[in-house]
């Protein structure tokens, strides 16, 4: 239904906007392979009989069925007055504008003629002053609706174009920048539930048989693929050509306005772990967060804190802030505690999606986005889920790399007991749309480690180690 409406719109803009809006002149001239005829019109419809004779086809009426059969070569179209359903080569098709009974049999709209009859016979309409030419070649393939989703990573952006059906396409880079995706026998229509938000993909424009992708400066196509189940085109963009300059110089260049968000764990009434009276996790995480902020700013990065004083902040608000700022990274800082007093060391966590509750989270996210955009949650939900999963698993990949980079520096620089990189469904990591990790800098429940954690020297070394890990990740990506 919606596809047909969209199609009609495109058609009207392309060729017959005046005719559809104001009705047709009493007769229209049609030309085909050097022949010409005048066809009578009936309001916004045109007689079918003269056009069939111009094409050299046959038009017969079955009185018992009340159906007109239009045939040309192997092709057979069966239409009936006032009925939307038509039979095209044995397949049922629903038309927006049904045919009408007319003095010479049956009359159809120009859109119907082009879309259902001429397209089946392998022709299309072209205008000239005072009439139409029927020329070989199908102009309007079936529309294909496209739902775009982008995911920005450290150095690349993935654009997923979810397709309503399989298509064949080719991709051409435009010399002035950007690229065009050319569709064979299909008219792309963008069906975007949410606005595109990407640092590298600026906009998408659907045209006749093509989709233009506008890219940010210095961004180019790295790869593209057509995938099935569900049908989609996946394109990856990044800086082209890759500069072989070593990382330390580039770091400053790379740091755009998107900030790194540092989250000092706990705060306010939520003290977090308590080492000894007055030694609280919430204070330690804020101190290290401030030192980390300085270390990162010195390297040219923009940094934002989820709290910069002793206040309580909901866990979900912390992640929401990072998402709203479209942060490059999210780093949550914590200090641990165990009932086993000998346990010590640092560990870095990233999100795990492997408990089934994550499906529910994805479902509700997809539903929320759908509702926010005014769409119904019933349409495209499974596809949304798959795409959400895809984007999430990409973010997870990046998060695991970030976790490894940070943990590697913590191990190397601090000679801490390596507790490794782990995955857990922590609330602050849930729903982060950028690489996100939670760093447990050590155990306040271990006497020796507590003493170290409370020394400013050690706090600075922790901050430096985490900053180096972040640099490794951003520079090397």
């Amino acid at each position, binding site marked *: 239904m919606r596809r047909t409406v969209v199609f009609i719109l495109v058609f009207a803009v392309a060729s017959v906007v005046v005719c559809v809006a104001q009705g047709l002149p009493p007769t229209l001239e049609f030309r085909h392979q050097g022949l010409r005829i005048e066809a009578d019109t009936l309001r916004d419809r045109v007689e079918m009989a003269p056009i069939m004779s111009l094409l050299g086809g046959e038009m017969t009426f079955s009185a018992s069925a009340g159906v007109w059969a239009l045939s040309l070569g192997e092709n057979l179209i069966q239409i009936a007055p006032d009925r939307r359903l038509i039979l095209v080569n044995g397949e049922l098709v629903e038309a927006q504008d049904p045919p009408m009974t007319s003095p010479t049999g049956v009359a159809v709209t120009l859109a119907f003629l082009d879309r259902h009859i001429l397209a089946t016979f392998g022709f299309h309409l072209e205008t000239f002053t005072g009439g139409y030419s029927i020329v070989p070649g199908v102009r309007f393939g079936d529309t294909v609706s496209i739902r775009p989703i982008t995911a920005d990573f450290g150095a690349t952006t993935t654009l997923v174009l979810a397709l309503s059906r399989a298509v064949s396409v080719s991709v051409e880079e435009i010399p002035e920048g950007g690229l065009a995706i050319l569709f064979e026998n299909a008219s792309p229509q963008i069906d975007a539930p949410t606005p595109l938000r990407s640092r590298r993909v600026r906009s998408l424009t659907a045209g006749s048989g093509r989709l233009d992708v506008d890219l940010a400066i210095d961004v180019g196509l790295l790869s593209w693929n057509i995938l099935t189940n569900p049908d989609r085109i996946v394109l990856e963009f990044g800086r082209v050509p890759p500069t072989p300059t070593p990382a330390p110089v580039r770091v400053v260049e790379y740091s755009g306005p998107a900030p790194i968000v540092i989250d000092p764990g706990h705060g306010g009434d939520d003290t977090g772990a308590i080492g000894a009276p007055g030694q609280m996790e919430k204070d330690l995480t804020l101190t290290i967060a401030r030192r980390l902020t300085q270390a990162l700013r010195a390297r040219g990065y923009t940094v934002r804190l989820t709290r910069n004083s002793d206040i309580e902040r909901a866990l979900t608000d912390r992640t929401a802030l990072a998402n709203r700022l479209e942060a490059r990274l999210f780093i949550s800082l914590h200090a*641990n505690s165990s009932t086993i007093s000998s346990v010590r060391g640092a560990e870095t966590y990233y999100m795990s999606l492997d408990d089934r509750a994550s499906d529910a989270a994805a479902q509700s996210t997809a539903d929320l986005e759908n509702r926010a955009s005014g769409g119904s949650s019933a349409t495209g939900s499974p596809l949304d889920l798959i795409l959400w999963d895809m984007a999430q698993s990409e973010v997870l990949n990046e998060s695991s790399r970030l976790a490894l980079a940070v943990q590697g520096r913590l191990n190397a620089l601090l000679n801490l007991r390596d507790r490794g990189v782990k995955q857990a469904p922590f609330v602050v990591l849930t729903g982060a749309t950028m690489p996100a990790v939670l760093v447990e800098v050590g155990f*306040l429940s271990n006497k020796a480690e507590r003493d170290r954690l409370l020394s400013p020297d050690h706090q600075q070394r922790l901050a430096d180690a985490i900053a180096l890990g972040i640099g490794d990740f951003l520079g090397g990506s």
Partner: protein
Amino acid sequence: MNRRVLWIVCAGVAVALLLAWLLFFRSGRMTPVEEDLPATIAPTPTPAPKQQVVLLFPGRDGLLHPELRQVSLPKESDTRIQVLVEELLAGPTSGLAPVIPYSAELRAVFVGQNNQAYIDLTGPPEPLDGSMTELMLTYGLVNTILLNTEVTAVQLLFDGSQRPTLTGHLDLSRPLVLNKRFISGP
């Protein structure tokens, strides 16, 4: 006059509360009240057969380690969970740490129609801390129950109500499923 009415009302409420407490909250641990049933239909108590169960306790590596135990396991999910949790609360017999770092009691077990279990524990007397404590308590309980029963998910309750989180890291407001990441490999 008013005072007498007040006394009667108070006494009535007190008796009702005591009865409710005896019937609903203590039934799990108390000897069931003997009912006067005709001898012919009195069930002969057949002790549940002993079975091997896997109990998970935290080690110093931040992972849960299995401890095998032979226990009499009833068939019904709720009583089965009760046995498992009581075994966990009794603590490890090897060098592992307790799953719950305070002396908790099991208040109630419910199993919903969708095979989701709700287990209600007494809350910690003072706030717990650390993500490790939270992970070990949560997945020690949840994984032990899921590994030994037909239940599909476990929702933890403390003092009869949901808690958004226990130490500020994990989301405990929803039922949780098996998470093998925190179980030590063989």
